């Protein structure tokens, strides 16, 4: 059936850090769209204020407005007959709901902590990426705002209003997440996808939540070390990346190599020197102009008069000599 109506538009965070999108909700929606074969017009942006709902991801349909939550976007796509869960039995549908709940309650808090709350990861990975990729002047204050929002969200999800970055919170969250990962690994077993040979919405959710933990290299995340031991989950993610996001996975392989293996310091050093020289020159120029405009101006004028007066004396003596 040829669809004449214009396709819906999907606004996502752009690709980075080795993934088709740096945001976990966007990954879920992108994966589901690919699984269901939905022809969406995808806008990859780095400014959440440009999205129709003010946050990313966002789906804008012609008739039914916009929505932002991944679950709502998936429902919207299902209404348009793009349903990746079409072949699932009723029991598999029930299991889908249950395992998605497990992910949201156990794994998502740890993911939020690892990317946004842990100080080392936030400064070196998340804030750096957002600072480099968002437009001026948003990149100065928006990452900080986003971090506060994520901390608030984490506190409300866990029901612990005094949760702070620290070892206690880290241990608790990572313990729950590891249990969840083990349970997922046991459920997946050696299958390609969770239900049979074609992926469903549960696969989209698991991919969206797992891929950042597997692909983004975080300096301080014990969970990543434990995740490396769960081979079937690693294979699951890499499989989906290579099958459904082939172009992005090739780009992603190159980017982390250039930025981390060569060492970020070497890349930045020539720019660092240049910046230092420029700033020194600007400072010297500023000081000189300030001096010219206020104090030293007077001294220079006096020097000129002094030069003038001996010259006039000499001139008069020369005249006298000439006269003589």
């Amino acid at each position, binding site marked *: 059936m040829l669809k004449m109506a214009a396709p819906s538009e999907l606004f996502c965070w752009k690709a980075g850090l080795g993934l088709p999108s740096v945001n976990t909700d966007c990954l879920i929606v992108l994966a589901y769209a690919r699984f269901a074969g939905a022809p969406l017009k995808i806008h990859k942006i780095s400014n959440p204020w440009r999205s129709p709902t003010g946050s990313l991801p966002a789906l804008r349909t012609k008739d039914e407005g916009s929505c932002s*939550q991944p*679950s*709502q976007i998936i429902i919207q796509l299902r209404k348009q007959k793009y349903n990746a869960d079409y072949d699932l039995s*009723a*029991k598999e*549908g*029930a*299991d889908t*709901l*249950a*395992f998605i*709940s*497990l992910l*949201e*309650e*156990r794994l998502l808090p740890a993911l939020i902590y690892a990317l946004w709350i842990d100080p080392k990861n936030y400064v070196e990975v998340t804030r750096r990426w957002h600072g480099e990729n968002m437009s001026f002047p948003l990149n100065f204050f928006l990452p900080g705002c986003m971090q506060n929002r994520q901390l*608030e*969200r984490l506190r*409300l*999800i866990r*029901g612990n209003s005094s949760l702070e970055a620290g070892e*206690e919170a880290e*241990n*608790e969250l990572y*313990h729950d997440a590891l*249990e969840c990962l083990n*349970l*997922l690994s*046991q*459920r997946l*077993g050696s299958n390609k996808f969770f239900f049979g040979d074609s992926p469903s919405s549960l696969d989209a959710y698991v991919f969206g939540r797992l891929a950042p933990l597997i692909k983004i290299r975080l300096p301080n995340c014990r969970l990543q070390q434990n995740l490396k031991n769960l081979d079937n989950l690693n294979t699951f993610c890499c499989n989906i990346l290579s099958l459904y996001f082939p172009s992005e996975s090739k780009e992603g392989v190159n980017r982390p190599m250039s930025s981390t293996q060569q060492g970020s310091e070497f890349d930045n050093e020539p720019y660092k020197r240049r910046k230092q020289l420029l700033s020194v020159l600007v400072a010297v120029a500023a000081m000189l102009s300030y001096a010219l405009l206020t104090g030293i101006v007077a001294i220079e004028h006096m020097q000129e008069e002094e030069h003038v007066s001996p010259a006039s004396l000499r001139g008069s003596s020369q005249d006298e000599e000439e006269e003589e």
Partner: protein
Amino acid sequence: MSLAAEAFVSQIAAAEPWPENATLYQPLKEDQILLSDSASSLAVQTFLRMCGLPVLVSCRANAEYMSPSGKVPFIHVGNQVVSELGPIVQFTKAKGHSLSDGLDDVQRAEMKAYMELVNNMLLTAELYIQWCDDHTATEISRPRYSSPYSWPLNHILAYQKQWEVRRKMNAIGWSGKSLEQVYEDVSQCCQALSQRLGTQPYFFSKQPTELDALVFGHLFTILTTQLTNDELAEKVKSYTNLLSFCHRIEQTYFKEHERESQSGSSRHSKGSLP
């Protein structure tokens, strides 16, 4: 509980047997307790009965504040205080009583997942209906929640709780949902549970587990609690195997209790299933 505290508690717990005077604390049953707390409390009571562990139920107006995590119910066993079903299950396991030992790894994964489903959808829906639906909040939740306190504390506490719950709904993305959508979610959740239960007596064939206790706690409370309208109960009633599941557990574990407590039905809750 932090990991270190958990390990410590487990060690101490393992040392002593279950005492006779273990107590469960919850808010006042007739006047104060709300649907979500009542469901959680019933789930814990059912679990302990399934394990064959005796517990006395004590109703206190300040149960929420006594609890170590701020959530009810909590149990006082020996010299330890443990709140919420998850930690209580671990605590009883440390004492050597467990319902899920016979499950294999895949089944345990499913059990944990379905427990999270109930927490994520049913409990959140109950909280939403109680506190985010203006009609229910004004008629039932705020008056009941603040009934032990005098003016002006009752207004302050009630609004504070409502504000807290609304912020949580905002954080998890439920604030944009309408009441109809929430009922739809409840229906989906019940359908998933009904599918999983099928025609078996319990969720994992012959033996009940903590999942059965949790599901019973929530469904029984929904069915026997009168809110401003009956729509929530109707959603559950449309699944006959869930109804018979609740009947079965009520008959097996609460028959004696019902014979003992002959109190007439209160305005808020009825005594048994219709």
